[in-house]
């Protein structure tokens, strides 16, 4: 596992930008900034789901690392697991869980909590709990 530096200022600033994007989306287009819901709108059926709008948001997300690099002069550094079987299972669980439970970290964790939705608060506490438990088991019981 990789040790990461504690970055309270950058993290709060980045968080505020995420919030700003969410407010912008609701104020102008009337939409919730839940990324799993937005990705789901790329898939059929398309009744009233504005797939083109969802595609534009996704395009913006995909473009952001290039702009980050252009602005800072350095590429974004990340550490992604190369245990590919594990990543496939994780992807399935994240996609299925978010769509089945009606939201993800952004939809429930940011937008839902900001609306004080009891559903989103329960969902966020639940996925935090299983997230903590999963990392504990993988790193300290099974061994990383």
């Amino acid at each position, binding site marked *: 596992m990789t040790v990461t530096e504690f970055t309270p200022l950058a*993290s709060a600033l980045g968080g505020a930008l995420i919030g700003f994007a969410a407010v912008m989306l609701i104020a102008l287009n009337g939409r919730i900034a839940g990324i799993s819901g937005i990705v789901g709108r790329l898939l059929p059926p398309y009744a009233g789901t504005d797939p083109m709008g969802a595609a534009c948001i996704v395009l*913006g997300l995909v473009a952001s690392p290039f*702009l980050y690099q252009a602005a800072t002069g350095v590429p974004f550094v990340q550490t992604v697991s190369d245990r590919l079987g594990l990543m496939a299972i994780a992807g399935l669980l994240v996609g299925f869980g978010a769509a089945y439970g009606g939201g993800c970290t952004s939809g429930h964790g940011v937008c839902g909590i900001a609306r004080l939705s009891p559903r989103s608060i329960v969902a966020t506490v639940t996925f935090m709990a299983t997230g903590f438990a999963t990392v504990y088991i993988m790193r300290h019981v099974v061994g990383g």
Partner: protein
Amino acid sequence: MRQAVNLLAGVIFGLGLLISGMANPAKVQNFLDLAGTFDPSLIFVMAGAVAVTFVGYRLVLRRPKPVLAERFYLPASDIIDGRLILGAALFGIGWGLSGFCPGPAIVSLPLLAKGTLIFLPAMLAGIGLARLLSQGKAPRAEPVAQVD
């Protein structure tokens, strides 16, 4: 105009994920590793995002409608059921295993890590599967109801 707003919101959201460090799965997993290499940064991401959204939503949802659309598309369901809990629980397991949730995974696409290129199609398949299973059942994050 609406699509320009969507594009810009996607860019700003993505920059937020990158600047905050949330687009680095190692950082997310360290946040979730209370007993090990704990990195509390993500609390600050959540706090910053929720604070701005909390105030912004209160100002915006007072208005009769959004600037460029006919109505606000807000989640219709307020039901806390097994579906919500099961979905969130599975989501958290996948999040812990990979350090990825949907936003950071999409932002990571052009960085072309092998793990990302496996994760993203699997995530799409998972979303598709959940949609197939839930057709005609309770509403999901898909906004359908009008507020006011």
